[in-house]
């Protein structure tokens, strides 16, 4: 359930227009001999370039425009640095109902010997990047003249966001190069009774200092470049940034603030949960003979899933054009009457039906951990959105999201799991933690019944069954594809691990089913699966992990490791051995891990007749919501997954029984 947030367009603009920027001045500032002589980054070893300073002067001016004056100076150390700073594009134009203008561009290159090459005015090109109805994105583009390793490049320009305010503007404090000094100067709009406030994320203390002409400044120094690592937390969770907004000049009591937010939201959305006679009758009919509260809610959940067409669902068969023509449902009664609505309508209808059935049902507001890890100590409603419906059972609240089609009842999207959610209320809104699903909720169950030939070819039948978040991901990946494309995608996926695999009789089940597990079944043949030497066959029993690589290969880590959700893998593989071959000094990989975080439990055995190998593997990870690991424990985590990979690559040796040597 997503309601539009009033600041969204502005927020998007801020994201779009965080280009290398920083404060306007009529004059270039003097270049120091130290800057000219600089041979390597002060902030970060081995950097290709470094921002010496980055200044942005922001004037939230009473005329109604928001004016950014940027000035940036960069030292280039290497050819890579030259390459990445040689061309500058500054976008502007009419985007998302906003209008941005660019003016006063100037740039220059300062050679290591101190000589200066100015950018000529006619070397700045204005071009229209994209133009369509209601949208015209343009750019001023130029190449830095005479750029080479060892030089300094600097440029400045003014950006005018027509008719906009600095309320909820995000300011980036890190760049793709390390920064020696970044300074933002802001002249706030003179709102009566409101003051400019800021929140800094993941950075140094950022107290604003009063400057002349009504500006306030904040400065940070020695900021490393932002890097990318596999399985890192969301960018906003690791980078240093700042949020600017206007609020009343008063000391904020966090609890009171949230109570106010919860009450106001409850009041403003009351009509969206309105129960009329039809809703009441429908609730009674849908509940039928259900006895317990849980059963009743399940029936209502099921009703919303099956009886209301969800226009937000890719698999609904509704074209975008039809979607555009849908009438707005102003009440749950409208949704019920029309039998169709978007994800938000479905959620609200569910809440109304539950209310009609005598339950206490509320809209729950929560952050999104795919964007930022938010805590309620940060008193600002900017970070939370309506996300699910909370139903009270005794003293407990449970959360439901029937509007998102592939979420089973009792689970939430992973982005909303394990978070504090604000349950709206006319009197006393409360924070309640949404449950984090355990590993068993997101399970992949894999079964293979295979036969190994003497030449190393393996062949047989396979079934894979996905539940929980695994199933949601598979359904989302496949629900918009044709049957043929789904099969091709499966073949491609299998071939990334087993390049010689040939798949037949593919069946893919429950792709668009909201509840049932996502299932693949197929017949597979893999020539050259086992290696044959003169008298032996070498066989990897972990069929589903054959060809997989260790999860982490880098020896060092800068940011925490983040898994989206806990999961469980449950494999069973039987392999009929070729006639004349028997196990040769076979042993099994060793179990490891613990039940507090994750555990690997393998077993290898043979049937009584010695002809069939039975391999079982059970692996789970993320117990108790342990899905975020600080960089300091990376070596242990890497080791854990290295051992897992080695164990999965465990090989069994088969020896030809007739061989006598």
């Amino acid at each position, binding site marked *: 359930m997503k309601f539009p947030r009033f600041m969204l367009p502005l927020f998007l603009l801020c994201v779009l227009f965080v280009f290398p920027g920083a404060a306007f001045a009529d004059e270039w500032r003097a270049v120091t001999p130290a800057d000219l002589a600089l041979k390597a980054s002060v902030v970060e070893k081995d950097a290709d370039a470094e921002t010496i300073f980055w200044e942005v002067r922001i004037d939230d001016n009473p005329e109604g425009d928001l004016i950014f004056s940027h000035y940036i100076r960069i030292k280039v150390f290497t050819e890579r640095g030259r390459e990445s700073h040689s061309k500058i594009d500054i976008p502007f134009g009419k985007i998302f109902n906003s209008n941005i203008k660019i003016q006063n561009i100037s740039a220059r290159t300062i050679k290591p010997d101190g000589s200066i090459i100015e950018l000529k005015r006619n070397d700045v090109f204005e071009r229209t990047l*994209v133009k369509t109805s209601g949208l015209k994105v343009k750019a001023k583009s130029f190449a830095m003249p005479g750029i080479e390793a060892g030089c300094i490049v600097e440029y400045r320009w003014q950006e005018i966001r027509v008719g906009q305010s600095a309320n909820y503007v995000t300011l980036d404090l890190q760049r793709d190069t390390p920064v020696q000094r970044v300074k933002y100067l802001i002249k706030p709009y003179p709102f009566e009774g409101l003051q400019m406030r800021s929140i800094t994320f993941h950075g140094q203390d950022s107290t604003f200092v009063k400057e002349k002409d009504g500006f306030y400044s904040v400065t940070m120094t020695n900021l490393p470049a932002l890097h990318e690592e596999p399985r890192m937390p969301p960018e906003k969770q690791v980078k240093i940034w700042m949020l600017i907004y206007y609020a009343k000049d008063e000391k904020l009591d966090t609890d009171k603030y949230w109570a106010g937010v919860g009450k106001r939201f409850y009041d403003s959305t009351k009509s969206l949960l309105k129960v009329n006679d039809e809703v009441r009758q429908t609730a009674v009919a849908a509940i039928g003979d259900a006895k317990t509260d849980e059963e009743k809610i399940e029936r209502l959940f099921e009703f919303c899933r099956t009886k209301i067409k969800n226009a937000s669902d890719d698999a609904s068969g509704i074209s975008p054009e039809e979607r555009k023509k849908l009438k707005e449902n102003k009440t749950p009664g409208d949704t019920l009457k029309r039998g169709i609505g978007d994800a938000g309508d479905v959620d609200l209808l569910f809440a109304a039906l539950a209310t009609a059935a005598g339950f206490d049902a509320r809209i729950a507001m929560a952050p999104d951990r795919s964007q930022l890890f938010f805590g309620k100590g940060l008193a600002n409603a900017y970070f939370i959105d309506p996300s699910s419906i909370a139903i009270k059972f005794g003293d407990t609240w449970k959360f439901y999201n029937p509007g998102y089609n592939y979420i089973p009842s009792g689970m939430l999207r992973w982005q909303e799991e394990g978070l504090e959610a604000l349950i709206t209320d006319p009197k006393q809104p409360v924070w309640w933690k949404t449950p984090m699903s355990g590993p068993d909720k997101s399970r992949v169950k894999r079964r293979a019944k295979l036969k190994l030939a003497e030449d190393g070819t393996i062949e047989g039948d396979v079934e894979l069954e996905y539940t929980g978040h695994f199933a949601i991901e598979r359904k989302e990946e496949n629900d918009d594809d044709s049957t*043929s494309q789904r099969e091709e995608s499966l073949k491609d996926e299998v071939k990334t691990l087993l390049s010689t695999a040939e798949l037949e009789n593919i069946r893919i089940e429950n792709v668009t089913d909201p509840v049932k597990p996502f299932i693949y079944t197929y017949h597979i043949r893999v020539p050259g699966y086992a290696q044959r030497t003169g008298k032996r066959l070498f066989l990897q029993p972990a069929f589903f992990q054959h060809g997989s690589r260790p999860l982490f*290969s880098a020896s060092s880590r800068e940011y925490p490791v983040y898994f989206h959700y806990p999961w469980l893998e449950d494999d069973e593989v039987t392999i009929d051995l070729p006639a004349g071959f028997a196990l040769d000094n076979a042993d099994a990989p060793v179990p490891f891990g613990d039940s507090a975080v994750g555990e690997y439990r393998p077993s290898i055995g043979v049937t009584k007749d010695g002809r069939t190998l039975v391999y079982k593997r059970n692996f789970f990870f993320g117990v108790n919501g342990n899905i975020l690991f600080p960089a300091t424990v990376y070596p242990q985590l890497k080791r854990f997954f290295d051992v897992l990979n080695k164990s999965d690559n465990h090989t069994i040796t088969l020896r030809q029984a007739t061989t006598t040597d």
Partner: protein
Amino acid sequence: MARFTALLFLMLLSASAALAVGDDAPVWLRQAATLSVPAFDKKVASVVLVDDSTLTVSADGQVIEVSTYAVRILTREGRSEATAAVGYETDTGKVKDFRAWLIRPSGQIKSYGKDEIIDSADLNDVYDESRVKKIVATDEAEPGAVFGYQSTTEKRPFFYQSIWYFQANAPVMSSRLTVVLPIGWQANSVTFNHADVPAAATGTTYTWELRDLGPLEWEPASPSFSNLAPRLAVKYFPTERAKNPGVKPFETWRDVSVWYSSLSDSQAIPDERIAAKARELTANANTEFEKVRAIAQYVQNIQYISVQIGVGRWRPHAASEVMAKSYGDCKDKANLMRALLRSLNIQSYPVLIFSGDSTYVNETWVSPGQFNHCIIAVKVSDDTKGPTIINHQALGRLLIFDATDDNTPLGDLPEDEQGSFALIAAGELGSLVRMPESPPESNSVDRQIEATLSISGDLNAIVRERATGQRAVDYRREFRSLSRGNYVKRIESRISRGATAARVSKVEPIDRSSEGKFDLDLEFSAFAYGQLMQERLLVFKPALLARLESLLLTEGVRRHPIVLDAYVISEKLHLKLPPGFVVDELPDPIKVDGAFGSYQTTYEVKGDELWFTRTLAQKSATIPAAQYQPVRSFFERIRAAEQSPVVLVKK
């Protein structure tokens, strides 16, 4: 011609009339939608019903192109084909009319016009006159729908030539190009990747058509699409009687040479700054080659930036301007290098080539439109030697060099340019020549590994890799494109593929660019690399690094030829065996020879060491699809050999 013009007029009229009544499709599209199509494989996502373009050339050289296109969407993936695109140049042309329609399976029609057009620029260049208008109906198109569009563009081209692709990947029912010329003009054509498609000519109206073309499916290691899809190159020009002085017909490659020399020579005149720079750069150079190399390295290090305005798409910026700004595109770089060399009295010529596919340029179609890149040929004396020197009949010994590829040094040529036809623009003396090709052994990787295996299977390895030629370019490109930290991570990842949990203690790259070489020294350890079984057997794979794990050529049948590059990879491993263990079983050594390459492994126990070697020598080749099975089998055998383990047993 009069008949055709009338037909065209009626067609346009019918389109306009249809549009006048709102969401109705033109007659040609409604007719196309009724065409029955054969049953295709279920993977075929769409079928082109009509792809028709008519170019009408007026006596003053203006060209009006009217295109009609209809595609039936067969599967959900085919929805992406419901996209119309028309390219144009802002300085020499404009799109006069552009509309599209979607006929749904229900028969309902949606029309698209001005409000739906997206006009976009190439985001990579600083400025480029080339733009494209698009109409995208992918969200609305559903299987069974027919999407069609019609466009009218007006242009005044640099050359009176057209390339017509009869198909993209999808099957095509009908693809047709018509050229309507003024009286006194004529056209001729060359067909690529298909038997000759002759024109049906009526007066000065020429039509080329192909029907019922099957789908073009992607296969790994295929020739590029431009060398698979049937393609037509058409040239149209006034005959002698009505010659238009503004229209160059390019009858011979010499004509192209003369034309390009006239555009570029005047831009390569050195001024005093250029001459001074050349003197400075070559102050310590003793030989002709060293002088050229010093200039080449300087030009290679100039930033590649493209500013494409007007004739600037063909004519380089003045050398003095490029040197002052220190940036330019390929022709700017080649041109600056010419000016620098000229100031040293070394003659050189621009060379027009196609970058990206060495088989693209066809000598039978005389046209500058076949080229997308510019390199340089430097006239050298007999004292200068090297694999990229050619003997030109009129110009003598020429050293070929690409100043844009900053990873390929003087004396080598990028792989995708080797063996390609290229035009040496030297006025009346210029001609189309074949670029030099380096043999496989010039592009090699030699790997020497000294390793020890402990009784628990732990591995310690010292690796020395020595790369030359284009393989050195691969190493260099990777090294130069990544920061030190990311480069180390890349190497760690590569080693981990063969040896899980490897701890890399040394990564020492040495870029010997001027020699065309790259050295990489590595040291790593990996616990339990060998698998100990019941404390008795120790099993490990002797191909420690860059083992062939997965195969590209796995399908049972092959439709397209297979393209292979030339290189040699050789490896020698000396592995000290763990004390107390002896070799129980070694994989059989193999030796595979094919017309396209050879592969060999050897195993030998020398005292307490295992010596293992493997060598893959691959030739540059385009192998017909009929010979697919031997190629597939060749790589399957390599993979099997590199996966094979050695078994040690406790004494």
